[in-house]
């Protein structure tokens, strides 16, 4: 389910192999490790809502939707009038971006290659 969200938020995630997904999910788990239990409960509930709510609009669960409909559904959450839905999506999107861009290969793929040697490394 979370993978389907990540693939919609960052289309390049379609290219990830199982080891890369392990890294991504490991980063997300680590970042949630010490968070308050109520936040984690809320997140789990929101994931369920994202999975089942499209049934009413598209007649299918989120994970059964094509990419375009997934994106339309998430865009609806993003601009929703409800604070709860917007904030929930903001949190989910943040975790998806953390997992994807927090990995070194993703950072390198966008040209981000920091070096502790700074200017010296530039030659």
């Amino acid at each position, binding site marked *: 389910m979370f993978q389907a969200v990540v693939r919609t938020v960052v289309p390049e995630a379609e290219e990830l192999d199982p080891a890369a997904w392990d890294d991504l999910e490991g980063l997300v788990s680590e970042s949630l490790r010490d968070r308050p239990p109520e936040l984690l409960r809320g997140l789990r509930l929101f994931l369920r809502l994202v999975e089942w709510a499209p049934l009413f609009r598209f007649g299918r669960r989120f994970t059964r939707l094509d990419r375009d409909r997934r*994106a339309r559904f998430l865009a609806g959450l993003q601009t929703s009038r409800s*604070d709860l839905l*917007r*904030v929930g999506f*903001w949190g989910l*999107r943040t975790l998806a971006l*953390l997992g994807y861009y927090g990995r070194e290969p993703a950072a390198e793929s966008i040209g981000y290659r920091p070096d*502790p*040697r700074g200017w010296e490394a530039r030659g």
Partner: protein
Amino acid sequence: MRERAYDIVIVGSGAGGGTVAQELAPLCRDGVRIAVLERGPRLREDEFSGREIEMAQALYEDGGGFLTADRSMTLAMGIGYGGSTTVYTGTSIIAPQRVIRGWNVPGLEPEEIERRSRKFMDQNNVHLLEEALINENNQLFVRGCRRLGYDVQQFPVNVKGCRGASLCNLGCPNQAKQGTDRVQLPRAEQAGVEVVTRCEALRLEERAVIARVTARPDGGKGEPASWEPGDYRIRAKIVVACAGAVNSPALLLRSRLPVSLARLGHGFTCHPALILVGQHERPITNFVGHPKSYFLDQFAESDGFILETCMYFPFTTAKSLSGFGAAHSTFMKAFSRLQMILVLACDHTDPHNRVTVDRRGRPVVHYGFTPAVKSALAHGTLTAARIFFAAGAQRVHVPAATTPLVERRDAERLEGIVDERLFRPGSVTVSAAHLQGGCGMGLGPQDSVTDAFGRVHGLPWLFVADASLFPDSVEINPYLTIMALADRAAERIRRDAGELLN
């Protein structure tokens, strides 16, 4: 519960705690026992990897993503030996005279803040970086500002041997930044002050701190605590709370103090900030070189915002851009061509914005964007967008706009593009790192938590010496002012030591 006894216990080791530790350290010569309790770890020099998520988890509370109560903003709070001074960019500005006068704290004059700030500018090697070390991300900001006739200024920074790794906010891998972890704490330790890391102050009792020492987690960074893991009752004749603008008020709120402090937790401000991104046609030097070399404060008084150069890491950048999907990815793929500007609102105290604790004693920050803050962020965004285009950017990402991507051809039609209604929970990523207030200084318990020297009203043994003392926002990067106030509090403690320690 284990027992320990000291004469002075300092809670926190950042700009406030590190300064107090250094300034009180001479007392150790007379046999005074001083301990600093730091919740986070002390990292070895080779543990500063520069990896974004790993370092954020190690050096920030909640990995830098501490959420306000309504989830509208994240707060960055440094933890570990040196506190937030390990993760700031070292920008060193003396508080404006009008701000200190506006605080209206009896006996606190701007000249005194300036004198004390200059003392730490000298100690911490504050200077202007030479031009050759300024990267294009910063140069473009200067160019854009000058083309528009703005009065752009260079930040003095407290670095020594900066190699331009551009990783300041993840802890400098070259230990170039001269925070309290490099200057004040080592001096204090040399003079006999004991620093206990992985030691969290749970609550205060009459002349005592109840604290918990935790073991290093498996695979975690940093040295193990010097004390055995477990709970401690640490007796002290003087306690100085320097845990920052969220955790100092929370510590006092958790404690059953025998006084009524109606203002405790109130007066919280934080300079809410937006990261703006402009895309250039060609790659620029952006993630090499000091990330924050220039600022623009000419609109602070009139429009309530400051602009600063900045350069963030992939996840932080991705989070700051609105939207998702292909358009979002396209901007991220242009990373080497991105210029960044930070828009900070000079917020002011508001009755609704404050720190409380939940039933488990954890801090809760209530913060809502006032109309003035929304307006400041909107005006700051517009000004930043103009600077990007004046510097030659092809397109600019405006997070608080219905259509965030603004092309160069639309640069003349920027007015009205920012939709202030989008400054609501879940729409725009707003974050803050300049956390202030909560234990404000003042005249008496009706208007404040402490006196003008940081002494808590009605409790001669309890002091506060950190950004929580600020009665209102300082409207600049706060660390030098924190050090100046901590220096002032330490001076008062030294003066009264004979009475307080007997």
